[in-house]
């Protein structure tokens, strides 16, 4: 026997009663949007900071290179002028000279640490530090300088 029940009653899509978005749905959607925007903004600013950091690092390398050249000339003139200690570099007298503690070149603070290894060689560590945002970044370079005159 065929089903005589009208199909219109069985079809739920014909029912005019539809629910809208609940408060939970709306809050969830807004939270997802906020998380997405926060991640995108963080990624954007982190990439910008990485670019600035890379630029500062390559400029800091030039500051190291200046110190290496200057120490080369100072050691050629007088190897004994490179006494053990912590220094900066100055060019105010018209020559490169070592000054106490450290020196400043633009945003970069340079510190040169010289240690005696033996009679004809000295260990040199050049530290460059600079402020970036709320942090201090640094670069270190070390090498040995020899008294070729001996």
């Amino acid at each position, binding site marked *: 026997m065929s089903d005589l029940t009208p199909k*219109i009653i069985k079809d739920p899509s*014909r029912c*005019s009663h*539809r629910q809208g978005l609940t408060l939970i749905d709306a809050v969830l959607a807004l939270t997802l*949007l906020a998380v997405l*925007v926060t991640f*995108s*903004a963080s990624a*954007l*600013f982190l*990439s*910008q900071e990485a*670019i*600035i950091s*890379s*630029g500062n690092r*390559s*400029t800091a*390398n*030039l*500051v190291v*290179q*200046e110190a290496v*050249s*200057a120490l*080369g*000339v100072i050691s*050629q*003139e007088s190897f004994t002028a490179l006494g053990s200690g912590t220094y900066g570099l100055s*060019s105010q007298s*018209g*020559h*490169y000279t070592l000054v106490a503690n450290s020196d400043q*070149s*633009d945003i970069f603070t340079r510190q040169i640490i010289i240690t005696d290894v033996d009679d004809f060689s000295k260990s040199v560590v050049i530290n460059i530090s600079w402020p970036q945002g709320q942090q201090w970044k640094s670069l270190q370079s070390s090498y040995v300088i020899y008294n070729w005159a001996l």
Partner: protein
Amino acid sequence: MMNNSRPAFTLLEIILYLFIFAVIGLAVFSFSQMAFSVNAHSQIVAEVDSDGSALMQRLIGYIHRTPSNGINYPLAMASSDSLSITTTDSATTPVVISLQSGVVVVSEAGGEPVAMSSNRVRVSDLQFQNLGTSGVNDIIRISFRLANNNQGNRAEFDYSRSFTSAASPLLR
């Protein structure tokens, strides 16, 4: 007969919908504008930094390839906005490096000046300072400032940086 009547949106609902749509649209537009601005500034920063380092390395390279007594000027304890060096090759001597209209140029043996810096950047305050003693231990301190060629005067394209280093003639 079935009852298919559904209530339409009220005026209040439509206004609320439009308001939320406008707020979200404005937020998305502002965020994309900020993203483009940050991206443009990052590109400029990277460009100026890499061009500055590259220019400095080329200047240092010229000094390294100079014989120990090959610095013509600046003389010891003097500074100048141009550098003249004698090379081991008479066909290129003297090499003069100077600043012309914001561009660092090099001229070999009195020939036409050739640009060393890119036209995307503008160089200023180029200075060569000889911190050596009487031409024996010459050491040239090089400093310059590099800025982006901000022709549109847009704030996000405004960036400059100072570069300083030093080099000695290495040929003996």
